[in-house]
């Protein structure tokens, strides 16, 4: 049963950017899109485990810095024609605080 965890204040994540949250073996990347929505993904591209947190965020997608795969932030799915997906975690903003369900 997952519970909500406090991550940081929204403004601590750059607009169209991300921050890395330590978690078990592989960190979690928390993204903030241009419309101030937040998304959390396992920080590993389904292709070759590239750190998605380091990619360019556009719309509700991030482009992996290693080989340019585009990953849908809401689902963790790779955009066609690439195939694969990474784990997502529920995330939301409440009173300016970013919350993550772990």
């Amino acid at each position, binding site marked *: 049963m997952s519970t909500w965890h*406090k*991550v940081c204040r929204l403004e*601590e994540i750059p607009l169209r950017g991300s921050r890395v*949250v330590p978690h078990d073996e592989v960190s979690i990347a928390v993204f903030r899109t241009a419309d101030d929505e937040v998304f959390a993904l396992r920080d590993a591209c389904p292709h070759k485990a*590239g750190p998605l947190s380091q990619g360019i965020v*556009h719309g509700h997608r991030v482009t992996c810095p*290693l080989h340019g795969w585009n990953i849908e932030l809401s689902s963790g799915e790779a955009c066609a*024609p690439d195939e694969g997906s990474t784990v997502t975690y529920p995330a939301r903003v409440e009173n300016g605080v970013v919350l993550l369900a*772990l």
Partner: protein
Amino acid sequence: MQKQKLVVVGNGMAGIRTVEELLKLAPDLYDVTVFGAEPHPNYNRILLSPVLAGEMTLADIVLNDLDWYKDNGITLHTSKKVVKVDRIARKVIAEDSTGATMEAGYDRLLLATGSVPFMLPVPGNDLPGVIAYRDIADTEVMIATALTHKHAVVIGGGLLGLEAANGLKLRGMDVTVVHIGEWIMERQLDKPSADMLQASLESKGLKFLLGKQTEMLTANAEGRVCSIRFKDGAEIPADLVVMAAGIRPNSALAEASGLHCQRGVVVSDTLQTFDPRIYAVGECAAHRGIAYGLVAPLFEQAKVCANHLAQMGISRYQGSVTSTKLKVTGVDVFSAGNFTGGDGTEDIILHDKNGGIYKRLVIENDRLVGAVLYGDTGDGGWYFQLLKEGRDVGSIRDHLMFGDAFTNNHVGDVGHAGNSKAAAMADEAEVCGCNGVCKGTIVKAIREQGLFTLDDVRKHTKASSSCGSCTGLVEQILASTVGGAYQATDRTTKPMCGCTALTHGEVRAEIRGQKLLSLDDVFATLAWHTPDGCATCRPALNYYLISTWPHEAKDDPQSRFINERAHANIQKDGTYSVVPRMWGGLTTPDELRRIANVAEKYHIPTVKVTGGQRIDLLGVKKEDLPAVWKDLDMPSGHAYGKSIRTVKTCVGTEHCRFGTQQSMSMGVALEKMLFGMWSPHKVKLAVSGCPRNCSEAGIKDVGVIGVDSGWELYVAGNGGIKTEVAEFLCKVTTREEVLEYSAAFLQIYREEGWYLERTVHYVQRVGLDYVKQRVVTDADNRKALHQRLLYALQGVVDPWRERLPGEGLPQLAAEFTPLPVPVETI
């Protein structure tokens, strides 16, 4: 809100391509209804020839199967011919083979009715056994007839006629091609190449009757065609007559609806007919007096038309330059532009009759204006590119005939740019060495996914999507697989990315002309399709903004690739590499000691000497970067950026017994002047102190070679993917001049180059003469360029220094600091 209704008349390649483009831009804007006269979903008409020849089946050539229509919510009516457009009630009326009618209302109507074959107006042209060659039904008749009859006559020695003749021959018929002209394919070939083609086809058993005019077709006792008689009295047997004497735009429906037609449905640059609710694309449309019969222009039209249907309204179709590349029974033929020449043009011809090679290049005012290639079409794409770009070929004309490989000195198989001859390659042969893609995979993807463009192939197979050195080869494979449907991509006219219809050149001009200062300005003013761009356009736009408006436009770190945000180079495992700057490749014992200490303290696994005369520390964790920089106490080497990288130097007169100039200090002065310079792509310099050129200045973006009487400057060299020798720019005498000329050249490149375009490609695009004129001849302009570069670099700070732990700007520190472990909320 209720959706608008879009009705498409014509279920062929032009109409459906427009719908596909529209769905990409505005998937929910319209309820789409498509009417097709044929009983099939959209198929690739160009591939009817391989079907006739038995190389492919009908199932192979379907582009959009019925599920595609269903999945996209498109209503498809097959076997229903639209017979009337009621423009007042805004509805179309369609009829099926039984005469039953149905109606559909529209808000927007798209006519894509294609063309109709021209049937010679001779007695007997309606006899059974007389057909055109246009669709699946014609192809099926031909296949069936070949099983039962012997003599086939094809009227028309154009591309389509020859393909039909070839297919029928392969199906076992005795085939004669009748052609009214003096030589075959006169629209695509000149006489010498056509004669060679004819001889080659004759050796395969086809017969030709040239200069023959058909008088009538006669019937046998059963009423079926049995012979063809000519005006000169000759007569030959014919159980099947295929009319391939040309096509006419099918504008009957538009004409009956009162739309202005003149050799096609007349459309504007927005593909609108004289009724602004009605659009027309493809073979039925006449744009600026031309109805195109090739697929590439029609796809360009589809893109523009979709843009307007999607109510974006920012795209214009301005006509297409077309080329023909085809395969007729294993013979490769290519032609483009004005290949017949004429007044004011010159020909360069290579004619090897026995070897089966003929090449003719037509040149006018040092520009390539036309080309015919027969037998070896490997360089067709390259010539076509030169032709479309109108590039000055004066400096390469003595090599031009020998092709891209010879002119541009490719060697070996890496960076072959297509010269391994795609068609001859085995399916298992590796094409893309970066992503390990072999030819068979590419061909399969092209066939199965219905791909037409280089971008499509890159997306689906990854071939040529990394370093790009195999691009030429992939283009060749594409061309040989889809034939005439392929058109070379061309960065001059290609949009930046999927977010806009504007090209790099247009975007740069708008940013300057409208003084756009931020990404949001660009997105809003230039009507970007996406809210905040993509990973392709954002870095380019950010560069254009800061290079056009230094100190005014705001740099956006989130639009930079991670390396330029972290000021280090990301590695495959997510660690980074650190390259401190060593001015001119010079270092000190003290710096080396610090580097050694850092490597030990931070457990840096690999220390390597780089090609740019520096030291690379590989495997640094991101959070350690600021501390590593602090301990190094050296400036950033910018080894990670689209920026000035290094100035490589030889020892020079400071020590060398052969040196004629002080190359080390010259190099240091250049590097200090250029420190912190962002550019469209990376920039590397080298300075040699004598013509022995130990710093390899001949393959740098700017190469400086000291001679006894001064310095020689070379520009636009490249040692990477495709080695390019730098071009001689000019000779100067003083060190100040070296600085000024180098700065001016780099500034013009910074102002006019497209993002990710190296200096070599920039200079190839605009021509060395232009660069010389602006940088060497025009002294005022040179000084102005120099000053603008110095202004742009005013106040540049070392990016590492801004990010030192505890000292740097706090907002920059977040990049390197992971958040704390999350705390559970109560």
